[in-house]
């Protein structure tokens, strides 16, 4: 196979597909990118066998064919060539990347070893606004766990409802959910956030197609396609964790609260909570760390309910407040040992956060 393309275009399709390539895969072939040239298109596939990203580019085809190139190295090599046209070719176990002088000759991976990733999903394709969807994933994703020991918690639940799609994630300390009315997702499935996080950086476009079945989730746009193996586990029954009502309600400026928690976080460490004392005059934040010192401040806010002090992990609180859309954040509470609920405008985002027991 042999193609010619603009350096920046080629670097882009390689780099985006390479985001699916794991850095520690035990299988060497998964460190490669499959480049498949047909018609007038180059199709680049990267996979770690759970998440697959496929990008395409119109190129000048000199000779059709397939090759597997070392993912990170090839992508970087193209990126670092002088600006202008680049030629990528593969022949007799060698990949050649040249352009305006420099010449890389890299060992080709064994093309037939590249796994055959099932890429087609029978499920109907639902079209969504790409930008809004990626933003919603990020909003909910803050609550997803990064701990592979509990895979169920590393995903975002796509829950199909009659009137739309609900996204839910929890790492067992907080739970974020977002309702997206009007999106008929069909199937309910649990999609790894590790994959979803990459959509924005790889294939996101103004319009995004979403397909879900019981094994895979697929996202496609004019810029490419991502498929992810869904997590085959039962998501916690989160509905029973959502309190029915909250007697106390604080409404506070999002920017002021974020700034204040940011200051408190300077003094706190990971396990030291920030305390919020809620009263009619607003909210008083304080954090004390042995051997270091303390920080306190008062923010004016509207509060109705019992005077109380509740403590939260600073990072979890920052994540939640930061994810709320709009200028005002509402914090609803029950008591210092029951979950608090953060929400914002009318975007259907809710962030349930467990307090820290002092």
């Amino acid at each position, binding site marked *: 196979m042999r193609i010619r393309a603009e350096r920046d275009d080629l670097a882009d399709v390689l780099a985006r597909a390479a985001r699916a390539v794991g850095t520690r895969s035990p299988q060497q072939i998964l460190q490669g990118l499959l480049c498949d040239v047909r018609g007038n298109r180059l199709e680049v596939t990267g996979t770690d066998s759970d998440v697959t990203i496929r990008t395409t580019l119109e190129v000048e085809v000199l000779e059709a064919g397939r090759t597997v190139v070392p993912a990170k190295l090839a992508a970087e090599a193209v990126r670092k060539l002088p600006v202008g046209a680049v030629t990528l070719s593969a022949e007799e176990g060698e990949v050649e990347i040249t352009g305006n002088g420099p010449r890389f000759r890299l060992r080709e991976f064994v093309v037939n070893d590249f796994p055959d990733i099932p890429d087609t999903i029978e499920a109907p394709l639902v079209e969504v606004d790409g930008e809004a969807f990626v933003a919603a994933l990020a909003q909910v994703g803050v609550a997803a766990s990064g701990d592979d020991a509990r895979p169920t918690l590393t995903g975002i639940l796509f829950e199909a409802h009659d009137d739309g799609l609900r996204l839910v994630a929890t790492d067992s*300390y907080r*739970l974020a959910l977002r309702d997206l009315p009007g999106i008929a997702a069909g199937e309910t499935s649990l999609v790894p956030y590790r994959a979803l996080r990459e959509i924005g950086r790889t294939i996101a476009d103004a319009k995004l197609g979403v397909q879900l079945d019981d094994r895979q989730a697929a996202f496609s746009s004019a810029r490419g396609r991502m498929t992810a193996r869904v997590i085959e586990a039962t998501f916690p029954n989160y509905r029973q964790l959502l309190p029915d009502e909250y007697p106390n309600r604080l409404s506070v400026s999002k920017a002021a609260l974020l700034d204040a928690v940011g200051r408190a976080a300077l003094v706190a460490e990971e396990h030291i909570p920030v305390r919020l004392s809620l009263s009619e005059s607003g909210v008083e934040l304080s954090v004390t760390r042995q051997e270091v010192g303390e920080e306190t401040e008062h923010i004016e806010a509207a509060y109705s309910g019992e005077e109380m002090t509740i403590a939260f992990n600073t990072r979890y609180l920052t994540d939640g407040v930061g994810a709320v859309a709009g200028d005002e954040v509402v914090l609803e509470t029950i008591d210092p040992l029951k979950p608090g609920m953060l929400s914002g405008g009318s975007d259907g985002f809710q962030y349930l956060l467990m307090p820290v027991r002092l």
Partner: protein
Amino acid sequence: MEQFATRFLHVDMDAFYVEVERLADPSLRGVPVIVGGLGSRGVVAAASYEARRTGVRSAMPIVEARRRLPRARYLPSDMAKYTTMSRRVFAILDDFSPFVEPLSVDEAFLDIAGLRLHYDRPYDVAVAMRKRIRDELALPASVGVAAVKFLAKMASKEAKPDGIFVIDAGTERAFLEPRNVVELWGVGQATLASLAGLGIETIGQLAEVPNDMLRRQVGVAAAAHLTALANGRDPRSVEPGREAKSVSVEETYPTDLTESDEIDRALLELCHRLSGRLLKAHLAGKTLTLKVRLGDFTTVTRSLTGRQPLSDTSQIWPLASELLGKVALSGQGIRLLGIGVTALSEGEPTQLAIDGSDRTALADVSAVVRGRFGDDAVLPARLAEPPEKKTQG
């Protein structure tokens, strides 16, 4: 070298919460300060000496305090802050003696018998201790010195504020005689009324009342207790026990354990025992250490640090199993197993889990039941014996 005749110290921080607040805000000095719950149903947690002059006392409703002292400075109590400072106070006390028995965040008994080679008199220990607390923490402390615990505590009350009071050996009776019996340890309103029925008001009168008369009035046990106190006797020793650095249990088996089921059960049993010790002491720790001694006496230890403090069997067991899985048995049997928890904390902030997966509720209930009915009242089902078998054994 002589022994100290008075070896017990009672250290009591003066208006501790108030003084801690004053460290942060010097404008609170010299004025009446009240710390407590500031809501309509709050109570006074601590009052400065200026405030106490008007009769404000701990546990008084804050509303009442405000009525008496509308112009005092009122502050919400900040336990985290006081606990932090308390640790520093205890760190100083620990430097003086390994026998430190905390009574609360701001109060402790010490046995200083071992300092006789370093100080001429117990009084000098008290001076040195107060100086260190003053120099390093800028906090006032009062110290009572006596030959027995309850007298040391009465002495510190006498020393307040910011002083030392020694009840010299041999002067106990003279100290006690004129005082009201209500000052004695364990004398509440009920006992007070019973004693009044015998016409007893002072400790001196109590010391002289015929024993059988006292027994009829208050019962055998209380009579013995009161007579001892009235005569300045108190057999209790100082019981250290705060913040043990680690808690561990181990077992050497009569024959080496070889079957995996047998090993699992043995480990579970140890986890349960360790949990019992931790719960009893109200401790939890994040670092779990496993010790394995093999048939050939090779000893291997493995440890890991979890996110949550561990105290319940259900929390310890999975981690202990994980650790054991990392030990290469190389075909040998296990001669000894031990597990321990370090990085202990008491009441450290704990991130709660939404789904209760931190098992707090279960652990709490289990702790209560085991505390009341014995360690084996709640057992992992694998360790439980059928009821009939148990009665035979």
